[in-house]
């Protein structure tokens, strides 16, 4: 276990270019170079990716999460395994526990019972979960959660502060990422001057800032109109396809869920079904 980033990353190793990804927008062609550090990102051609035969990237083992002194059981013994490079959609109605599960996977919250493992290492009770998130997790939220006083370019740099990069390096990377998501013309704009779709593009660029292994998207199109929703989902698909990051997307919309390789349906804090496009796997835990 790395002392800096918690679990499963090794920043100390020499810098190596493992992801050289071209993201093409429908209107424009842009190049995104995701510079990463060895071991933090699985290249698209990796044999371990996207396959139940490979060791799981994330394992959820009999996880319970209660609120309101146990009166609300948000998760009731959930178990599942997520593999490197998978695009997993978690679908369910409001109160099904899908967002709670996403929070636990992102170490934003702590399980009351059970364990969550990242590459075989428990992450349920990390002493420094922020360090783990910083190096392994990229978040995309329904409400974008951009900082209102910062421009698009500055917002994207926020996760980079923990990486020890220089100011110019941060700025250059943020610019590259914003160009990659089609926002090069809005670098100096505050969030209030951006449309919903543009804000989410900035948020996606921000989620990629530290070349995470896992992207967690919580209803990423929930606040967008259908045109912007389509564009954002296409962008997410491209990011997933070309970087081969593991993408876990929470939604209540079956049409969106069907874009994923695997759809996990939740109800009342438990997994109702877990289906892959090619095959049906593990029944509900």
């Amino acid at each position, binding site marked *: 276990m790395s002392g800096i980033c918690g679990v499963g990353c090794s920043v100390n190793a020499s810098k190596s270019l493992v992801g050289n990804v071209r993201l093409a927008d429908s209107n424009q062609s842009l190049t995104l170079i995701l510079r990463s550090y060895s071991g933090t990102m699985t290249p698209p051609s990796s044999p371990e990716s996207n396959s139940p035969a490979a060791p799981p990237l994330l394992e959820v083992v009999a996880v319970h999460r209660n609120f309101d002194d146990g009166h609300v059981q948000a998760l009731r013994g959930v178990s599942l395994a997520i593999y490197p490079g998978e695009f997993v959609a978690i679908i369910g109605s409001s109160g099904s526990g899908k967002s709670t599960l996403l929070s636990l996977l992102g170490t*934003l919250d702590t399980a009351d019972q059970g364990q969550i493992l990242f590459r075989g290492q428990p992450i349920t009770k990390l002493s420094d979960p922020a360090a783990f998130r910083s190096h392994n997790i990229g978040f995309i939220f329904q409400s974008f959660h951009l900082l209102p006083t910062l421009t698009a370019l500055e917002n994207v740099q926020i996760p980079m502060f923990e990486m020890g990069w220089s100011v110019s390096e941060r700025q250059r990377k943020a610019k590259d990422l914003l160009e990659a998501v089609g926002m090069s013309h809005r670098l100096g704009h505050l969030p209030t001057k951006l449309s919903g779709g543009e804000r989410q593009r900035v948020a996606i660029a921000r989620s990629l800032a530290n070349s995470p292994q896992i992207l967690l998207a919580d209803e990423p199109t929930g606040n967008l109109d259908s045109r912007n929703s389509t564009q954002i989902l296409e962008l997410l698909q491209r990011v997933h396809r070309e970087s081969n990051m593991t993408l876990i997307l929470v939604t209540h919309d079956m049409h969106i869920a069907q874009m994923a390789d695997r759809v996990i349906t939740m109800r009342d804090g438990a997994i109702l079904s877990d289906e892959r496009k090619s095959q049906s796997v593990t029944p509900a835990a």
Partner: protein
Amino acid sequence: MTFLDFTLKNLLRRPIRTILTVMGIGVGIGAVVALLGLARGLSQSWNDAYKARGTDIVVRKGSGLQAQPFDDKLVESVRKTPGVDIATNLLVETLSIEEVPLMIISGREWGSYLWDSLKVVQGRLPNGPDEKAVVLGTLAAEALKKKLGDTVMIETEEFAVVGVVDGKAFVENGSIFLNAPHLQRIMQKENRTNFINIRLAKSADPQAVLKQLKQELAGYRVDTAHDDTSTNDGVKTFEAMNWGTSAIALLVGTFGVMNTMFMSVFERTREIGILIALGWRQARILRMIVFESVALCVGAGVIGILFGIGLLKVLAVTPWMSGKLEPYIGWDLSAEAMLLAVGVGLLSGILPALRCSKINPSAALLQ
């Protein structure tokens, strides 16, 4: 964007609140500068006076600002002490003179070296010990609005102004000088004095003479000229009182900054949750809040120092201070005030920062 840029943007999002907070703590820092400037000015003014006179050692009774009177024959035994070149009596009183509420009256022995340090600017020194005349320091002449040929009423007696002198020190220039017997008579302190000023022989070891005098003059305070002011109970009390007043002003300011920082943290709970979710570690969040608090106080420090210095300059020309006390305005005082401002910033930022670093990101994001 640097970390500093980020924290400053946070402060500037509510400019009016930031300005008011800065002004609040700035007034506190200004009070520190002004009050300490006065206390140090008092000490510095007397030190300068001793230096201008060329006094090495001072004998007095009691350690307050107003020395107690004692027998003026004591000086004769002091003169016999090995290493003492010259020793002379000095009777100092503070009196209300005409329209000026407080003025230093310096009664000096005729022919003593204390007269030598006064450079005549206009007129002359008294002709002899019996002439009923005074000379005025330049600032005293200004304060009393007197010129050569005028008279000055000291208590019940009238004296002719025969000269205006530059005493080369603020205290000296703010004083009225006359021959000691006149002042003794007016104050009904015949054969009494309250200071002995000593100039040492060039070959003398000051510490050895000091030790010898301390042995000989039990019950009296014998100090080097510098120590006479720095260890003076009156000066120390004045400084302590000023520190006390400053501490109250600072405490109020500290609570003001703390309140601002707490409000800022409460208002930004969701944003801080975002930062934590995006991987900002506890230490960085702590640093951000403390940094903001310190930045506020550094701004307040600059304003407070300028305000304090301005206040001192205004006080220096007021009638009740002009000619008596030159406020001390030095880099060291400004540096101390700035350190104090940083300290207040650290102190008032820590509690909000600790609260902030414990924010649950999951809950904060729902706000």
